[in-house]
């Protein structure tokens, strides 16, 4: 069974609580992550996405030299690194966010997972299982067919079938 740790991005961008917004923006520019996780003692305390930055810098005119703690979404909903994809999907369905920090048993940050990765991985799994199940079923029906149709001939050769 696939776990979150196999599909997560193990190198998330992280900042401290007292980093300035400008520094965080600098870190995120030109990176495909789309978000930066605010950590405190290795534990995720908040998350800042591209759209948070756009909203706060362009719309609300927050000073770029202020701290990230002002604009971060906190607390960030974390997903355990060993949780199953279906359980992660349930969390994603209820929360409706795109990006989630992945934490280990002690609550330390180990990665980042986004909605699309989880959904795609589940779809791949379902497809694989469906193909496997259909193959098994077809083989079983073929076997059944032979046993039932050829029963009358088989009993001539195998007396124990009588």
């Amino acid at each position: 069974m696939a776990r979150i740790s196999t599909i997560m991005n193990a190198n998330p961008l992280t900042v401290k609580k007292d980093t300035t917004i400008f520094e965080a923006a600098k870190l995120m520019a030109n990176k495909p992550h789309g978000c930066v996780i605010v950590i405190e003692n290795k534990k995720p305390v908040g998350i800042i996405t591209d759209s948070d930055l756009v909203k706060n810098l362009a719309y609300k005119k927050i000073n770029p030299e202020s701290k990230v703690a002002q604009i971060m979404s906190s607390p960030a909903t974390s997903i355990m690194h060993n949780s199953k994809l279906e359980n992660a999907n349930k969390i994603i369905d209820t929360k409706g966010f795109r990006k989630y920090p992945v934490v280990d048993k002690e609550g330390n940050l180990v990665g980042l997972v986004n909605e699309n990765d989880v959904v795609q991985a589940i779809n791949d799994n379902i497809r694989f299982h469906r193909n496997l199940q259909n193959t098994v079923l077809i083989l079983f029906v073929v076997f059944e067919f032979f046993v039932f149709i050829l029963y009358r001939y088989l009993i001539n050769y195998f007396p124990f079938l009588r």
Partner: protein
Amino acid sequence: MIRANTIMTENVVTVNEAASLKEAANLMLNKHVSTLMVAKDSKPIAILTENDIVRGFISKKAGKVKDVMSKNFLTINPETAYIFIIKKLKEEKIRLFPVIQNNKLVGIITETDIVDATRDFTRFHQIMQEAILAAFGLVTAFFLFFFSPLGQSLRNSLA
């Protein structure tokens, strides 16, 4: 076969390349989108994502859309297969597909559209899986009954 035109968003928010980054950011917030198409005479020439705007804010001198927009994008047509889009997403990490027909922008496929479509397919696959299992189960039950002694006696009494 699922095509691009069934999953694309048809209302694309476009922006002029001479607009300022602030205008572009306001447009994004008002229209609730994360990506703008930069268009000239309804012909797409570049894309502008939230990340591009962030990049524009940290480099002090870039104030216009045309300073930060990226002209490097992959266009598809409405007949492009869904499988092709998924393949590009997974292998080349392309997250944005403007849909072009006769040199005109007719829609856009973003990551959100792909997530929604994939969720639908997953549900469809699950239902199909259950249906196939049920059908095979009924066939098996029929075989077992038909060739069993009970079925034999029923067949004999009917004949």
